[in-house]
């Protein structure tokens, strides 16, 4: 067992390959995932390795990909569906919310739907309004679903494997601008699995807790470096899974620092940050030295032009400012 640095794409591919090798019920389905290896090359080589019975190139219909995947899960397989952009998951929303999320419940557990639905989400690649959306909160709101949004290659690998082994539908969201980063080392242990629903303290600190996930984890790390020089010590919590949400780890941190900022690239309005801030406000009311500050995108679609995109996506500088403001309390 060794550790190497690999990209998030490689971590995904490795996770998928290992699980396909371990369990022959694991099948992949999606558009252009076979010979082409998917538009972000995640599944490259897997059809060659496992055959077209395990890697299904689908017609262009996301609702169909998910619906067929749900059927495959009912039929005894462990499908991992890829949708090319998370924005297109919206056409499969009824299948995901009314079907996958509720099958176990409505049949009293007679039937279940162990499907993983993977999709790249978020901004940073100039995709514009319909190729850059943060959809994670839409799904985290739905009982019956689990929602994962990793930031590092190691987490990605551990969490994709856990998601495939999970008995329930998992929406697995990959921040597309992180696909090629190599932050941290990744185990090649085939049983390196990270349980869903556990946040990680990405950086320990004593002054302010920053609760974040996805691409904003790295903005937080930059901000922490900047603020270090100002004698402000950030604790950074990467929630990793939005549903279930690890409120315990968040709570521990905030009861130590007594100050919290929630930080994500999704719109500030009604992002998962609202849930986190409201919970902190309600359960840790006595611990708080200042308001829980939320940072997120303004209430606008994401424009494609990089300079405009930068205007709407929050960053390390904005976080640092918010931290300074909060430090005054």
């Amino acid at each position: 067992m060794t550790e190497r640095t690999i990209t998030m794409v490689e971590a995904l591919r490795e996770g998928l390959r290992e699980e396909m090798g371990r369990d022959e019920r694991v099948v992949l389905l999606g558009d252009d995932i076979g010979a082409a290896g998917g538009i972000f090359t995640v599944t490259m080589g897997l059809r060659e390795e496992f055959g077209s019975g395990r890697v299904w190139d689908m017609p262009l219909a996301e609702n169909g990909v998910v619906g067929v995947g749900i059927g495959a899960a009912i039929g005894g397989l462990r499908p991992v569906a890829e949708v090319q952009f998370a924005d297109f998951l919206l056409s499969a929303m009824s299948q995901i919310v009314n079907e996958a999320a509720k099958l176990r419940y409505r049949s009293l557990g007679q039937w279940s739907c162990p499907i993983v639905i993977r999709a790249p989400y978020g901004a940073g690649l100039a995709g514009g309004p319909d190729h850059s959306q943060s959809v994670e909160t839409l799904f985290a709101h739905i009982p019956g679903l689990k929602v994962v949004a990793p930031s590092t290659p190691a987490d990605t690998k551990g969490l994709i494997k856990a998601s495939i082994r999970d008995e329930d539908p998992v929406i697995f969201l990959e921040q597309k601008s992180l696909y090629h980063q190599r932050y941290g080392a990744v185990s090649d242990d085939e049983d390196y699995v990270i349980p869903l629903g556990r946040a990680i303290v990405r950086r320990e600190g004593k002054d302010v807790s920053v609760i974040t996930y996805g691409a904003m984890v790295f903005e937080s790390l930059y901000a922490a470096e900047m603020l270090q020089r100002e004698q402000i010590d950030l604790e950074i919590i990467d929630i990793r899974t939005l549903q279930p949400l690890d409120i315990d780890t968040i709570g521990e941190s905030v009861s130590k620092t007594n100050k919290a900022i929630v930080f994500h690239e999704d719109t500030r309005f009604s992002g998962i940050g609202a849930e986190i801030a409201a919970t902190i406000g309600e359960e840790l009311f006595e611990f708080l030295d200042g308001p829980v500050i939320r940072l997120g995108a303004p209430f606008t679609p994401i424009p494609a032009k990089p300079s405009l995109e930068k205007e709407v996506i929050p960053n390390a500088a904005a976080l640092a400012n918010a931290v300074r403001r909060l430090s005054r309390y």
Partner: protein
Amino acid sequence: MQDVDADANIHRLQESFNTLDFSAQDALEMYRFMLLARLTDEYLADLRTKGLMNGGVSCKGHEAIQVACARELVIGTDYILPYYRDLALVIAMGMPLYDIFLNHLGSEKDPNSGGRMRPAHWSSRKLGIVSSSGVAATHILHAAGIAFAAQIRQSSAITAAFFGEGATSEGDFHEALNFAGIHRVGALFICENNGVALSTPQSRQMKVKHVADRAPAYGVHGMLIDGANVFAAASAIREAAARARNGGGPVLLEAVIPSQNKMHEQPEIYDPVYSLRTFLLQLGALTEAADKEMREACAQKIEEAYQLALSTDNTGIFAVQDYVYADNPAESPQENIQPEISFSIEETLPND
């Protein structure tokens, strides 16, 4: 199906009967199920009128195609995805009447869904009945996926999804048939076309005359049958199932169901139960007396099942939050969901 008179209709039943290797006994058994379903349906309607029963729609007129399907599919092996209209199907598949009443009462003891769903959303892992939602057409895609999974697992199971003609307007139908056609999966897409979706007539639902006319758009085999002729239906389903089971690919089978009006006005022609009865009397397989006896036996079964369901304590096996996720509760579901008291499959058959 063009209009005919009563005699011509019986003649058609006879012709269809002849093409099958069915004995008179087989025919009688199908009649029994159709009758049991009809009487259960009427019993439920009556309870609803009295305000004693929750929603649910009638399967009246749909009995022949449904009972034919239950007979020709391999119950326990094949996957069946019914819609709310398929009472006769699930009865003929062997769902205990007791369960049906628990389900219609919305009882927490109902093994289908314990009061989580409205009535008529059946689920039975044992019978291969996949739990359907109340969202029209979504399950058509599931059927395509299940059938492809079976193909990949090299299973001989086929998959049958049932839906109305209205549901074919949904994108799910298109995406399911398209996928099924490409991969030639072993699925039967069975459209029970009763000409109307709530208030919407077929003419406002689609421009084509027949749902089966849509099959060529998917490279799928289309079949159009008289859904009120149980023998024609059985023969068509047998052919379609064989095709699907032997790698011949999916079938879109449209069973034309007579309108409620026609059935009401000319039951001797359009009511599948009525006309089958006439046929069996003419065939000599049934006598008026035997028919009366059979009806009474059915009625008694129904009454007993209803009373038993009524007397069953109607509260909690599971907490309302159980089964949102697998880890809540941790127990294996199959062991829990069958309530102690239940008819066996056989017991749902009416005695002679």
